[in-house]
């Protein structure tokens, strides 16, 4: 058990390291592996290259890694809690709710941290509450009604976002459409540090409750009869997950499908045990997003595209394929 955990962590850790090296090396003029090793080794004479790597690419790659890890782990938690492999913060509208909060925060002129983030957190909690009321009362965890409610909440959130954007005519919303599709361009080391300090403790809480997630997939009655305090654990996990998701939304905007595809893929390879799946989702999601961001930077001949475009282009077809395969 523990040996398997270590093995999975090691393999995916190496994968993430490779992805990060690739991400650091990728620039507008191609890949510069040689320079990377020289710079990382501390032996670079070229101070411009040093700056580009440490001030521009390094924070950006780490931001992508944190974003991917958070979304993937968040998707995994929602799938287990709702006992539905199709659940994901983006699809449920939790991300959309955070985005509304974040936009209101930006319009009010709040600082990115902690103002906009808290507004985004409030937005995600409001969406959760709305979902709760719509899926109504007794058991908020009943799969299908909740997923359908999520689709509606998501449509409503998108409408509110576009409404706010078209009404505002505000310079501060200049890049909002770009941000909505996932924007990693504005990464700095300070931002990355603040985000890391927010989401990494959340990872810890979720990992510590990963066996409870296993039991919860058998239903509340079974979980409770095996000693899980349903209300306490479920609300803790929902709040922690919303907290970390809203933090990434306020920094990076809306990026979909990562939370759907990565946990699903890892579950097919590693099985459904969340004690293995949680660290795997963190490392795998991070590696996936670093690669997606690298593609978003290098594919366009001019400028770059939002990373959400890449995740959706890879994620949606892959998901349909996986779904067909698992149904056979």
């Amino acid at each position, binding site marked *: 058990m523990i040996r398997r955990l270590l093995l999975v962590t090691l393999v995916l850790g190496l994968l993430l390291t490779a992805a990060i090296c690739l991400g650091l090396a990728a620039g507008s003029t191609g890949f510069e592996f040689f320079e990377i090793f020289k710079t990382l080794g501390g032996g670079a004479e070229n101070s411009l290259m040093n700056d580009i790597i440490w001030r521009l690419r390094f924070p950006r790659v780490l931001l992508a890694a944190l974003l991917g890890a958070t979304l993937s782990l968040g998707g995994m938690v929602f799938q287990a809690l709702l006992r539905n*492999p199709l659940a994901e913060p983006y699809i449920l509208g939790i991300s959309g709710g955070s985005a509304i909060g974040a936009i209101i925060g930006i319009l009010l002129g709040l600082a990115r941290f902690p103002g906009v983030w808290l507004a985004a957190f409030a937005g995600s909690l409001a969406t959760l509450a709305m979902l709760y009321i719509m899926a109504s009362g007794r058991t908020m965890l009943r799969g299908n009604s909740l997923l359908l409610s999520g689709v509606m909440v998501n449509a409503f959130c998108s409408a509110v976002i576009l409404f706010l954007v078209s009404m505002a005519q505000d310079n501060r919303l200049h890049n909002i459409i770009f941000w909505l599709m996932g924007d990693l361009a504005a990464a700095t080391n300070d931002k990355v540090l603040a985000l890391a300090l927010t989401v990494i403790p959340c990872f810890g809480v979720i990992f510590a409750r*990963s066996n409870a997630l*296993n039991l919860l997939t*058998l239903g509340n*009655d*079974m979980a409770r009869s*095996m*000693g899980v*305090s349903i209300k306490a654990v479920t609300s803790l996990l929902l709040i922690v997950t919303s907290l970390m998701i809203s933090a990434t939304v306020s920094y990076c905007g809306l990026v979909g499908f990562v939370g759907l595809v990565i946990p699903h893929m890892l579950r097919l390879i590693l099985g459904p045990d969340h004690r293995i799946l949680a660290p795997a989702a963190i490392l795998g999601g991070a590696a996936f997003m670093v690669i997606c961001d690298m593609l978003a930077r290098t594919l366009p001949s001019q400028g770059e595209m939002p990373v959400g475009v890449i995740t959706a282009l890879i994620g949606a077809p892959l998901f349909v394929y996986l779904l067909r395969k698992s149904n056979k």
Partner: protein
Amino acid sequence: MQPAIAVQNLTHDFDGQPVLQDVAFEVEAGRFFIIIGPNGSGKTTLLKLLVGLLPLTRGKIDLLSHDITRYSARSLARQIAYVPQSVPVEFPFSVTQIVLMGRAPHLGLLGFEGEEDIEIAHKAMAITGVDHLARRRLDQLSGGEQQRVFIARAICQQPRILLLDEPTAALDLSYQVRLMDLMERLKNEQGVTVVMVSHDLNMAAMYADRLLLLSKGKVARLGTPEQVIDFALLEKVYGCTLLVDESPLGKYPRVHLVPKRYLDEYMDR
């Protein structure tokens, strides 16, 4: 001897409709206790109240001499295990993984099983006859096999009280009798108190130390099989014609259903 379960004045409503009314009984430790009664008589509700899955509104339940409301979910799960009628399985867990989940209330903070836990799980799988399925995915097994896996999971929890809701319903004849024998063995060898809901009156009569007959949420009778399997009482409670004689195996009352054509013939005469 202290009773394993003591229930007093238990009343439970669902959406304003009374499901259980003023139910009271005791189960002595290390006994096989079977709850019988028609559909909708409140058997499953009673079982769920006993394992703390429904909030206790009126009445009192003592488990192993402590009020059930004083237990935490975890400490309760160390004393009592529950096998529901069916469990929806959405994720592709293997049989071993499901059975090991029974160790959850005994594990530390991170919830990783040790060698000892794995050995307990293997023993539980062996005595329920699912060890050959250990590596298979649970959602690819038949209903009866899944049922046995969940019974292995409950045994792996090493409870002092084991609650089962119609565990034999999905099993073929051979596994029905093997399951009942296994429950008897757990009772005799480890002193586990077994509480079971069953529709099979003949099986209940042959294995139970005590029977509880529920009717419309009330206790219709509580006693030994000879006291409870009484044809006048059962005909009244179940609302059909029955015949009770004695099993050729011994002093167990045996219930027969009477088809309508026999009754029609009898009336014609």
